[in-house]
Protein backbone atom coordinates (compact mmCIF):
# COMPACT_ATOMS: atom_id res chain seq x y z
CA UNK A 1 0.00 0.00 0.00
CA UNK A 2 1.33 3.39 -0.86
CA UNK A 3 1.93 6.11 1.67
CA UNK A 4 -0.88 8.28 0.28
CA UNK A 5 -3.29 5.36 0.58
CA UNK A 6 -2.44 4.96 4.25
CA UNK A 7 -2.92 8.65 4.85
CA UNK A 8 -6.33 8.52 3.18
CA UNK A 9 -7.44 5.63 5.31
CA UNK A 10 -6.08 7.19 8.48
CA UNK A 11 -8.30 10.18 7.69
CA UNK A 12 -11.16 7.74 6.88
CA UNK A 13 -11.51 9.25 3.42
CA UNK A 14 -11.18 7.87 -0.09
CA UNK A 15 -10.76 10.82 -2.41
CA UNK A 16 -11.85 8.91 -5.53
CA UNK A 17 -15.20 8.30 -3.88
CA UNK A 18 -15.51 11.93 -2.87
CA UNK A 19 -14.80 13.03 -6.46
CA UNK A 20 -17.49 10.64 -7.68
CA UNK A 21 -19.91 12.23 -5.25
CA UNK A 22 -19.03 15.60 -6.79
CA UNK A 23 -20.24 14.25 -10.14
CA UNK A 24 -23.64 13.65 -8.54
CA UNK A 25 -23.76 17.24 -7.31
CA UNK A 26 -23.01 18.46 -10.86
CA UNK A 27 -25.91 16.49 -12.34
CA UNK A 28 -29.28 18.17 -12.76
CA UNK A 29 -31.67 17.73 -9.86
CA UNK A 30 -34.05 14.83 -9.28
CA UNK A 31 -36.59 14.59 -6.48
CA UNK A 32 -38.32 11.55 -5.03
CA UNK A 33 -41.06 11.25 -2.43
CA UNK A 34 -43.44 8.64 -1.05
CA UNK A 35 -46.73 8.59 0.78
CA UNK A 36 -48.89 5.69 1.97
CA UNK A 37 -49.83 4.57 -1.54
CA UNK A 38 -47.39 5.92 -4.12
CA UNK A 39 -43.77 6.73 -4.84
CA UNK A 40 -42.99 9.59 -7.21
CA UNK A 41 -39.83 10.56 -9.07
CA UNK A 42 -39.47 13.93 -10.79
CA UNK A 43 -36.45 15.18 -12.68
CA UNK A 44 -35.21 18.28 -14.42
CA UNK A 45 -33.85 17.34 -17.85
CA UNK A 46 -30.95 19.22 -19.41
CA UNK A 47 -30.01 19.58 -23.05
CA UNK A 48 -26.34 19.87 -23.92
CA UNK A 49 -27.07 22.62 -26.42
CA UNK A 50 -30.06 24.44 -27.83
CA UNK A 51 -30.53 22.06 -30.78
CA UNK A 52 -29.85 18.78 -28.97
CA UNK A 53 -32.26 16.42 -27.30
CA UNK A 54 -32.68 16.29 -23.53
CA UNK A 55 -30.87 13.75 -21.35
CA UNK A 56 -33.14 11.10 -19.87
CA UNK A 57 -33.60 11.45 -16.10
CA UNK A 58 -36.26 8.92 -15.17
CA UNK A 59 -35.99 5.31 -16.34
CA UNK A 60 -38.45 2.44 -15.95
CA UNK A 61 -36.73 -0.71 -14.64
CA UNK A 62 -39.73 -3.00 -14.43
CA UNK A 63 -43.47 -2.46 -14.18
CA UNK A 64 -43.15 -2.02 -10.41
CA UNK A 65 -39.98 0.05 -10.24
CA UNK A 66 -38.19 3.04 -11.75
CA UNK A 67 -35.08 5.12 -11.12
CA UNK A 68 -34.15 8.78 -11.40
CA UNK A 69 -30.51 9.65 -12.06
CA UNK A 70 -28.15 12.49 -11.22
CA UNK A 71 -24.57 12.37 -12.51
CA UNK A 72 -22.91 10.46 -15.32
CA UNK A 73 -25.72 9.18 -17.53
CA UNK A 74 -23.50 6.49 -19.04
CA UNK A 75 -22.79 5.01 -15.60
CA UNK A 76 -26.50 5.14 -14.87
CA UNK A 77 -27.13 3.17 -18.04
CA UNK A 78 -24.82 0.41 -16.85
CA UNK A 79 -26.60 0.27 -13.49
CA UNK A 80 -30.08 0.45 -14.98
CA UNK A 81 -29.31 -2.32 -17.46
CA UNK A 82 -28.11 -4.46 -14.56
CA UNK A 83 -31.26 -3.68 -12.58
CA UNK A 84 -33.44 -4.52 -15.58
CA UNK A 85 -31.68 -7.87 -15.93
CA UNK A 86 -32.09 -8.68 -12.25
CA UNK A 87 -35.78 -7.75 -12.32
CA UNK A 88 -36.37 -9.95 -15.34
CA UNK A 89 -34.44 -12.78 -13.67
CA UNK A 90 -36.67 -12.59 -10.62
CA UNK A 91 -39.81 -12.68 -12.74
CA UNK A 92 -38.42 -15.67 -14.63
CA UNK A 93 -37.27 -17.85 -11.72
CA UNK A 94 -39.80 -16.97 -9.04
CA UNK A 95 -42.60 -15.39 -11.03
CA UNK A 96 -42.59 -12.35 -8.80
CA UNK A 97 -41.45 -8.72 -9.10
CA UNK A 98 -38.13 -8.30 -7.29
CA UNK A 99 -38.48 -6.44 -3.97
CA UNK A 100 -36.95 -2.94 -4.36
CA UNK A 101 -34.80 -3.26 -1.21
CA UNK A 102 -33.23 -6.42 -2.67
CA UNK A 103 -32.16 -4.82 -5.93
CA UNK A 104 -30.95 -1.68 -4.15
CA UNK A 105 -28.64 -3.72 -1.94
CA UNK A 106 -27.40 -5.54 -5.04
CA UNK A 107 -26.36 -2.34 -6.82
CA UNK A 108 -24.94 -1.06 -3.53
CA UNK A 109 -22.71 -4.13 -3.30
CA UNK A 110 -21.55 -3.60 -6.87
CA UNK A 111 -20.81 0.07 -6.24
CA UNK A 112 -18.95 -0.64 -3.01
CA UNK A 113 -16.75 -3.19 -4.78
CA UNK A 114 -15.76 -0.49 -7.26
CA UNK A 115 -14.49 1.67 -4.40
CA UNK A 116 -11.94 -0.86 -3.19
CA UNK A 117 -10.83 -2.87 -6.19
CA UNK A 118 -7.61 -2.28 -8.11
CA UNK A 119 -8.13 -0.70 -11.50
CA UNK A 120 -11.75 0.24 -10.92
CA UNK A 121 -13.45 3.56 -10.26
CA UNK A 122 -16.63 4.38 -8.39
CA UNK A 123 -19.83 4.99 -10.36
CA UNK A 124 -20.22 8.72 -10.93
CA UNK A 125 -23.96 8.64 -10.46
CA UNK A 126 -26.51 8.89 -7.70
CA UNK A 127 -29.88 7.20 -8.00
CA UNK A 128 -33.31 7.51 -6.50
CA UNK A 129 -35.09 4.17 -6.73
CA UNK A 130 -38.87 4.16 -6.45
CA UNK A 131 -40.66 0.86 -6.29
CA UNK A 132 -43.51 -1.04 -4.76
CA UNK A 133 -43.74 -4.42 -3.04
CA UNK A 134 -46.15 -6.32 -0.77
CA UNK A 135 -45.39 -3.88 2.06
CA UNK A 136 -46.22 -0.79 -0.04
CA UNK A 137 -44.29 1.91 -1.90
CA UNK A 138 -40.61 2.56 -1.19
CA UNK A 139 -38.02 5.17 -2.06
CA UNK A 140 -34.29 4.54 -1.82
CA UNK A 141 -31.33 6.83 -2.26
CA UNK A 142 -28.17 5.32 -3.73
CA UNK A 143 -24.75 7.00 -3.65
CA UNK A 144 -21.54 6.18 -5.55
CA UNK A 145 -19.93 5.10 -2.27
CA UNK A 146 -22.37 2.20 -2.11
CA UNK A 147 -24.30 3.84 0.69
CA UNK A 148 -28.07 3.43 0.47
CA UNK A 149 -30.92 4.75 2.58
CA UNK A 150 -34.64 4.23 2.51
CA UNK A 151 -36.16 7.71 2.41
CA UNK A 152 -39.58 9.33 2.76
CA UNK A 153 -38.44 12.11 0.48
CA UNK A 154 -35.12 12.96 -1.09
CA UNK A 155 -33.46 15.20 -3.67
CA UNK A 156 -30.04 14.83 -5.27
CA UNK A 157 -28.16 16.85 -7.89
CA UNK A 158 -27.35 20.51 -8.48
CA UNK A 159 -29.10 22.95 -6.10
CA UNK A 160 -30.98 20.06 -4.54
CA UNK A 161 -30.78 21.67 -1.10
CA UNK A 162 -33.67 23.96 -2.03
CA UNK A 163 -35.85 20.96 -2.89
CA UNK A 164 -34.91 19.20 0.36
CA UNK A 165 -35.93 22.29 2.32
CA UNK A 166 -39.32 22.26 0.59
CA UNK A 167 -39.75 18.54 1.30
CA UNK A 168 -38.82 18.91 4.97
CA UNK A 169 -41.29 21.78 5.41
CA UNK A 170 -44.16 20.00 3.68
CA UNK A 171 -43.65 16.44 4.78
CA UNK A 172 -46.78 16.28 6.96
CA UNK A 173 -48.85 17.47 3.97
CA UNK A 174 -47.85 14.78 1.49
CA UNK A 175 -47.67 11.71 3.74
CA UNK A 176 -51.43 11.21 3.47
CA UNK A 177 -52.21 13.06 0.25
CA UNK A 178 -53.60 11.71 -3.03
CA UNK A 179 -51.64 10.42 -6.01
CA UNK A 180 -51.99 13.63 -8.00
CA UNK A 181 -51.17 15.84 -5.02
CA UNK A 182 -48.00 13.84 -4.45
CA UNK A 183 -46.86 14.58 -8.01
CA UNK A 184 -47.65 18.26 -7.46
CA UNK A 185 -45.56 18.32 -4.28
CA UNK A 186 -42.70 16.68 -6.18
CA UNK A 187 -42.88 19.24 -8.97
CA UNK A 188 -43.08 22.12 -6.50
CA UNK A 189 -39.96 20.82 -4.77
CA UNK A 190 -38.29 20.62 -8.16
CA UNK A 191 -39.35 24.14 -8.98
CA UNK A 192 -37.68 25.47 -5.82
CA UNK A 193 -34.29 24.48 -7.22
CA UNK A 194 -34.64 26.48 -10.45
CA UNK A 195 -32.56 29.60 -10.93
CA UNK A 196 -34.30 32.94 -11.59
CA UNK A 197 -34.41 32.72 -15.38
CA UNK A 198 -35.62 29.09 -15.58
CA UNK A 199 -38.99 27.43 -15.33
CA UNK A 200 -40.53 23.99 -15.68
CA UNK A 201 -41.65 23.24 -19.23
CA UNK A 202 -43.01 20.19 -20.99
CA UNK A 203 -39.54 19.70 -22.48
CA UNK A 204 -37.46 19.72 -19.33
CA UNK A 205 -39.77 17.92 -16.89
CA UNK A 206 -39.92 14.17 -16.31
CA UNK A 207 -42.29 12.49 -13.87
CA UNK A 208 -42.43 8.82 -12.91
CA UNK A 209 -44.95 7.27 -10.54
CA UNK A 210 -45.59 3.79 -9.17
CA UNK A 211 -47.74 2.58 -6.32
CA UNK A 212 -50.45 0.37 -4.92
CA UNK A 213 -53.51 -0.02 -7.13
CA UNK A 214 -56.72 1.59 -5.97
CA UNK A 215 -59.95 -0.21 -5.06
CA UNK A 216 -61.41 -2.38 -7.80
CA UNK A 217 -58.24 -2.41 -9.89
CA UNK A 218 -57.07 -5.58 -11.62
CA UNK A 219 -53.65 -6.14 -10.04
CA UNK A 220 -52.24 -5.19 -6.64
CA UNK A 221 -49.82 -2.64 -8.07
CA UNK A 222 -50.29 0.37 -10.29
CA UNK A 223 -47.67 -0.02 -13.01
CA UNK A 224 -44.81 2.45 -13.32
CA UNK A 225 -45.96 5.37 -15.43
CA UNK A 226 -43.61 7.84 -17.04
CA UNK A 227 -44.86 11.30 -17.98
CA UNK A 228 -42.83 13.24 -20.52
CA UNK A 229 -43.53 15.89 -23.18
CA UNK A 230 -47.22 16.63 -23.76
CA UNK A 231 -48.26 14.21 -20.99
CA UNK A 232 -46.81 16.58 -18.40
CA UNK A 233 -49.15 19.47 -19.35
CA UNK A 234 -51.91 18.62 -16.82
CA UNK A 235 -49.29 18.02 -14.12
CA UNK A 236 -47.66 21.40 -14.66
CA UNK A 237 -51.08 23.06 -14.70
CA UNK A 238 -51.85 21.45 -11.35
CA UNK A 239 -48.66 22.97 -9.94
CA UNK A 240 -49.69 26.45 -11.10
CA UNK A 241 -53.13 26.00 -9.61
CA UNK A 242 -51.84 24.79 -6.27
CA UNK A 243 -49.49 27.76 -6.07
CA UNK A 244 -52.19 30.32 -6.84
CA UNK A 245 -54.62 28.54 -4.52
CA UNK A 246 -52.08 28.55 -1.71
CA UNK A 247 -51.98 32.34 -1.79
CA UNK A 248 -54.25 32.89 1.23
CA UNK A 249 -57.37 31.93 -0.77
CA UNK A 250 -56.90 34.98 -2.94
CA UNK A 251 -57.41 34.22 -6.63
CA UNK A 252 -54.58 35.45 -8.75
CA UNK A 253 -54.14 35.93 -12.47
CA UNK A 254 -51.60 33.47 -13.76
CA UNK A 255 -50.23 33.78 -17.26
CA UNK A 256 -49.75 30.43 -18.91
Amino acid at each position, binding site marked *: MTDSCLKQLAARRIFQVEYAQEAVKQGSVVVGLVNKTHAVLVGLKRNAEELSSYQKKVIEIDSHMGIAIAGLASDARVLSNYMKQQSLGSRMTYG*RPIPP*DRIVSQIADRAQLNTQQYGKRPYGVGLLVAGVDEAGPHLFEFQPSGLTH*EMLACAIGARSQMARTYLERNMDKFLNCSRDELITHGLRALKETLSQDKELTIDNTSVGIVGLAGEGAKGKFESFKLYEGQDTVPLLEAVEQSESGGNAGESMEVDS
Partner: protein
Amino acid sequence: MNHLPEIWGRPRNDIYGSYNPSYLKTSGPITHTSSPTVTGTSVVAVKFNGGVAIAADKLASYGSLARFTDVKRLRVFANSSVVGFGGDVSDMQYIDRLLESIDIREHYSTHGNMLNAKNLLTYLSKVFYKRRSQFNPLWNHVLVAGFDGNGAPFLSSADLLGNTFSAPHMATGFGAHLAVPILRRLFPEERPIEDITKDNAVAALQECMKVLFYRDARSLDEYSIAVITKDGVEVKEDEKVQAQSWAFAEAIRGYGAQTA
Protein backbone atom coordinates in the same frame (compact mmCIF):
# COMPACT_ATOMS: atom_id res chain seq x y z
CA MET B 1 5.86 -41.60 5.50
CA ASN B 2 4.72 -42.09 1.95
CA HIS B 3 4.61 -38.85 0.01
CA LEU B 4 2.41 -39.97 -2.86
CA PRO B 5 -1.14 -38.75 -2.15
CA GLU B 6 -2.78 -41.34 -4.43
CA ILE B 7 -1.49 -44.08 -2.11
CA TRP B 8 -2.90 -42.53 1.08
CA GLY B 9 -5.77 -44.35 2.66
CA ARG B 10 -5.49 -47.33 0.33
CA PRO B 11 -4.59 -50.96 1.07
CA ARG B 12 -0.82 -51.44 1.27
CA ASN B 13 0.64 -53.02 -1.86
CA ASP B 14 3.14 -55.15 0.09
CA ILE B 15 0.32 -56.82 1.99
CA TYR B 16 -2.68 -56.84 -0.37
CA GLY B 17 -0.96 -56.87 -3.77
CA SER B 18 -0.86 -53.95 -6.13
CA TYR B 19 -3.92 -51.67 -6.21
CA ASN B 20 -5.99 -51.69 -9.38
CA PRO B 21 -5.38 -48.14 -10.68
CA SER B 22 -8.49 -48.18 -12.87
CA TYR B 23 -10.47 -47.27 -9.75
CA LEU B 24 -8.58 -43.97 -9.62
CA LYS B 25 -9.51 -42.98 -13.15
CA THR B 26 -10.87 -39.45 -13.26
CA SER B 27 -11.42 -39.28 -17.01
CA GLY B 28 -13.96 -41.12 -19.10
CA PRO B 29 -17.60 -40.42 -19.86
CA ILE B 30 -19.64 -38.52 -17.24
CA THR B 31 -22.29 -40.76 -15.79
CA HIS B 32 -25.53 -39.62 -14.17
CA THR B 33 -28.17 -41.20 -12.01
CA SER B 34 -30.64 -42.90 -14.30
CA SER B 35 -32.97 -44.25 -11.63
CA PRO B 36 -33.78 -43.30 -8.04
CA THR B 37 -32.35 -45.41 -5.21
CA VAL B 38 -33.91 -44.60 -1.85
CA THR B 39 -37.45 -43.50 -2.57
CA GLY B 40 -40.48 -42.05 -0.89
CA THR B 41 -43.91 -42.97 -2.22
CA SER B 42 -47.13 -40.94 -2.50
CA VAL B 43 -47.88 -37.41 -1.34
CA VAL B 44 -51.58 -36.50 -1.14
CA ALA B 45 -53.07 -33.02 -0.79
CA VAL B 46 -56.49 -31.33 -0.82
CA LYS B 47 -57.55 -27.70 -0.95
CA PHE B 48 -60.28 -26.64 1.46
CA ASN B 49 -62.05 -23.43 2.43
CA GLY B 50 -59.23 -21.18 3.67
CA GLY B 51 -56.25 -23.45 3.16
CA VAL B 52 -54.66 -26.67 2.00
CA ALA B 53 -54.03 -30.02 3.74
CA ILE B 54 -51.19 -32.31 2.68
CA ALA B 55 -49.97 -35.73 3.85
CA ALA B 56 -47.13 -38.16 3.13
CA ASP B 57 -46.07 -41.36 4.88
CA LYS B 58 -42.74 -41.66 6.68
CA LEU B 59 -41.20 -44.52 4.70
CA ALA B 60 -38.07 -44.36 2.55
CA SER B 61 -37.75 -47.59 0.55
CA TYR B 62 -34.54 -49.05 -0.85
CA GLY B 63 -36.05 -50.88 -3.77
CA SER B 64 -38.67 -53.11 -2.17
CA LEU B 65 -36.92 -52.97 1.23
CA ALA B 66 -38.58 -50.70 3.81
CA ARG B 67 -35.21 -49.13 4.67
CA PHE B 68 -36.02 -46.03 6.75
CA THR B 69 -39.29 -45.63 8.62
CA ASP B 70 -38.90 -42.14 10.13
CA VAL B 71 -38.34 -39.90 7.11
CA LYS B 72 -40.10 -36.54 7.10
CA ARG B 73 -41.21 -35.86 3.55
CA LEU B 74 -43.16 -32.65 4.23
CA ARG B 75 -40.99 -29.55 4.29
CA VAL B 76 -42.36 -26.33 5.74
CA PHE B 77 -41.20 -23.14 4.04
CA ALA B 78 -41.44 -19.74 5.78
CA ASN B 79 -44.35 -20.95 7.94
CA SER B 80 -46.66 -20.34 4.98
CA SER B 81 -46.01 -23.09 2.43
CA VAL B 82 -45.34 -26.83 2.49
CA VAL B 83 -43.46 -28.87 -0.09
CA GLY B 84 -44.27 -32.61 -0.13
CA PHE B 85 -41.65 -34.80 -1.77
CA GLY B 86 -42.15 -38.06 -3.63
CA GLY B 87 -39.26 -39.86 -5.31
CA ASP B 88 -35.56 -39.93 -4.50
CA VAL B 89 -34.81 -39.08 -0.87
CA SER B 90 -31.25 -37.83 -1.42
CA ASP B 91 -32.52 -35.44 -4.11
CA MET B 92 -35.19 -34.34 -1.63
CA GLN B 93 -32.43 -33.52 0.85
CA TYR B 94 -30.57 -31.58 -1.84
CA ILE B 95 -33.68 -29.52 -2.66
CA ASP B 96 -34.23 -29.02 1.08
CA ARG B 97 -30.80 -27.39 1.26
CA LEU B 98 -31.65 -25.17 -1.73
CA LEU B 99 -34.84 -24.05 -0.02
CA GLU B 100 -32.97 -23.47 3.24
CA SER B 101 -30.49 -21.14 1.53
CA ILE B 102 -33.31 -19.23 -0.22
CA ASP B 103 -35.12 -18.86 3.10
CA ILE B 104 -32.00 -17.43 4.75
CA ARG B 105 -31.35 -15.07 1.84
CA GLU B 106 -34.94 -13.84 1.81
CA HIS B 107 -34.87 -13.08 5.52
CA TYR B 108 -32.15 -10.48 5.03
CA SER B 109 -34.89 -8.35 3.48
CA THR B 110 -36.39 -5.68 5.73
CA HIS B 111 -39.86 -7.04 5.21
CA GLY B 112 -38.97 -10.71 5.69
CA ASN B 113 -39.65 -13.61 3.40
CA MET B 114 -42.35 -12.80 0.89
CA LEU B 115 -42.03 -15.83 -1.41
CA ASN B 116 -45.39 -17.56 -1.53
CA ALA B 117 -46.21 -21.12 -2.56
CA LYS B 118 -46.74 -20.07 -6.16
CA ASN B 119 -43.30 -18.45 -6.34
CA LEU B 120 -41.83 -21.57 -4.76
CA LEU B 121 -43.41 -23.82 -7.37
CA THR B 122 -42.12 -21.64 -10.21
CA TYR B 123 -38.64 -21.83 -8.72
CA LEU B 124 -38.73 -25.60 -8.19
CA SER B 125 -39.99 -26.27 -11.69
CA LYS B 126 -37.10 -24.21 -13.10
CA VAL B 127 -34.62 -26.19 -10.98
CA PHE B 128 -36.12 -29.47 -12.21
CA TYR B 129 -36.11 -28.31 -15.81
CA LYS B 130 -32.51 -27.14 -15.62
CA ARG B 131 -31.36 -30.46 -14.21
CA ARG B 132 -33.30 -32.54 -16.72
CA SER B 133 -31.75 -30.43 -19.50
CA GLN B 134 -28.32 -31.34 -18.15
CA PHE B 135 -29.45 -34.99 -18.41
CA ASN B 136 -28.96 -35.20 -14.64
CA PRO B 137 -32.48 -34.97 -13.27
CA LEU B 138 -33.54 -34.54 -9.67
CA TRP B 139 -35.73 -37.63 -9.34
CA ASN B 140 -38.69 -36.16 -7.53
CA HIS B 141 -42.33 -35.36 -7.95
CA VAL B 142 -43.32 -32.62 -5.53
CA LEU B 143 -46.55 -31.02 -4.39
CA VAL B 144 -46.41 -27.41 -3.27
CA ALA B 145 -49.21 -26.26 -0.96
CA GLY B 146 -49.84 -22.78 0.41
CA PHE B 147 -51.24 -19.52 -0.90
CA ASP B 148 -50.81 -17.57 -4.13
CA GLY B 149 -50.16 -13.85 -4.52
CA ASN B 150 -53.84 -12.99 -4.01
CA GLY B 151 -54.10 -14.97 -0.78
CA ALA B 152 -56.14 -17.80 -2.31
CA PRO B 153 -55.31 -21.42 -1.39
CA PHE B 154 -52.74 -22.82 -3.81
CA LEU B 155 -51.88 -26.41 -4.69
CA SER B 156 -49.74 -27.51 -7.59
CA SER B 157 -47.21 -30.15 -8.57
CA ALA B 158 -43.84 -30.16 -10.32
CA ASP B 159 -42.13 -33.27 -11.63
CA LEU B 160 -38.60 -34.28 -12.54
CA LEU B 161 -38.99 -32.87 -16.06
CA GLY B 162 -40.14 -29.47 -14.88
CA ASN B 163 -43.79 -30.04 -15.78
CA THR B 164 -46.27 -28.28 -13.55
CA PHE B 165 -49.87 -29.27 -13.03
CA SER B 166 -52.51 -27.91 -10.73
CA ALA B 167 -55.81 -29.24 -9.37
CA PRO B 168 -58.01 -28.80 -6.25
CA HIS B 169 -56.78 -32.17 -4.98
CA MET B 170 -53.72 -34.06 -6.13
CA ALA B 171 -51.39 -36.94 -5.37
CA THR B 172 -47.99 -38.12 -6.57
CA GLY B 173 -46.72 -41.64 -7.23
CA PHE B 174 -49.05 -44.52 -6.46
CA GLY B 175 -51.44 -42.05 -4.87
CA ALA B 176 -52.16 -40.62 -8.32
CA HIS B 177 -53.82 -43.99 -9.09
CA LEU B 178 -55.24 -44.89 -5.67
CA ALA B 179 -55.96 -41.66 -3.82
CA VAL B 180 -57.13 -39.31 -6.58
CA PRO B 181 -60.23 -41.46 -7.42
CA ILE B 182 -61.21 -41.40 -3.73
CA LEU B 183 -60.75 -37.64 -3.58
CA ARG B 184 -62.74 -37.19 -6.77
CA ARG B 185 -65.59 -39.19 -5.26
CA LEU B 186 -65.52 -37.18 -2.01
CA PHE B 187 -65.00 -33.80 -3.66
CA PRO B 188 -66.55 -33.90 -7.13
CA GLU B 189 -65.69 -31.17 -9.60
CA GLU B 190 -69.03 -29.39 -9.15
CA ARG B 191 -68.58 -29.10 -5.39
CA PRO B 192 -66.92 -25.73 -4.73
CA ILE B 193 -63.82 -25.60 -2.55
CA GLU B 194 -65.64 -23.19 -0.23
CA ASP B 195 -67.91 -26.10 0.75
CA ILE B 196 -65.01 -28.23 1.98
CA THR B 197 -64.09 -27.67 5.61
CA LYS B 198 -60.69 -28.25 7.15
CA ASP B 199 -62.06 -31.33 8.95
CA ASN B 200 -63.47 -32.73 5.67
CA ALA B 201 -60.07 -32.34 4.05
CA VAL B 202 -58.14 -33.93 6.93
CA ALA B 203 -60.61 -36.85 7.14
CA ALA B 204 -60.25 -37.41 3.39
CA LEU B 205 -56.46 -37.51 3.67
CA GLN B 206 -56.67 -39.96 6.58
CA GLU B 207 -58.88 -42.19 4.44
CA CYS B 208 -56.43 -41.93 1.52
CA MET B 209 -53.46 -42.82 3.71
CA LYS B 210 -55.32 -45.89 4.90
CA VAL B 211 -56.17 -47.11 1.41
CA LEU B 212 -52.60 -46.42 0.31
CA PHE B 213 -51.28 -48.49 3.19
CA TYR B 214 -53.61 -51.32 2.26
CA ARG B 215 -52.76 -51.40 -1.43
CA ASP B 216 -49.34 -49.76 -1.98
CA ALA B 217 -46.62 -52.24 -1.03
CA ARG B 218 -44.05 -49.41 -0.65
CA SER B 219 -46.04 -47.52 1.96
CA LEU B 220 -46.26 -47.26 5.74
CA ASP B 221 -49.05 -46.75 8.26
CA GLU B 222 -47.17 -43.87 9.90
CA TYR B 223 -47.43 -40.52 8.18
CA SER B 224 -46.97 -36.76 8.48
CA ILE B 225 -49.82 -34.38 7.85
CA ALA B 226 -49.71 -30.60 7.50
CA VAL B 227 -52.58 -28.10 7.44
CA ILE B 228 -51.79 -24.71 5.92
CA THR B 229 -54.09 -21.82 6.79
CA LYS B 230 -53.71 -18.06 6.98
CA ASP B 231 -52.58 -18.49 10.61
CA GLY B 232 -49.58 -20.59 9.57
CA VAL B 233 -48.67 -24.23 9.15
CA GLU B 234 -49.69 -26.92 11.59
CA VAL B 235 -47.64 -30.10 11.11
CA LYS B 236 -48.15 -33.43 12.82
CA GLU B 237 -45.21 -35.76 12.29
CA ASP B 238 -46.39 -38.92 14.05
CA GLU B 239 -49.83 -39.82 12.80
CA LYS B 240 -50.85 -43.44 12.42
CA VAL B 241 -53.48 -45.06 10.21
CA GLN B 242 -56.47 -45.68 12.51
CA ALA B 243 -59.08 -48.45 12.50
CA GLN B 244 -57.28 -50.80 10.17
CA SER B 245 -59.24 -53.82 9.11
CA TRP B 246 -57.62 -56.53 7.05
CA ALA B 247 -60.84 -58.56 6.72
CA PHE B 248 -61.00 -57.75 3.03
CA ALA B 249 -57.72 -59.62 2.55
CA GLU B 250 -59.51 -62.94 3.04
CA ALA B 251 -61.48 -62.37 -0.12
CA ILE B 252 -58.50 -61.69 -2.31
CA ARG B 253 -57.89 -64.51 -4.78
CA GLY B 254 -55.24 -65.04 -7.39
CA TYR B 255 -52.05 -64.49 -5.41
CA GLY B 256 -49.83 -66.84 -3.40
CA ALA B 257 -50.39 -70.53 -2.73
CA GLN B 258 -54.17 -70.65 -2.75
CA THR B 259 -55.75 -73.73 -4.19
CA ALA B 260 -59.23 -72.40 -4.80
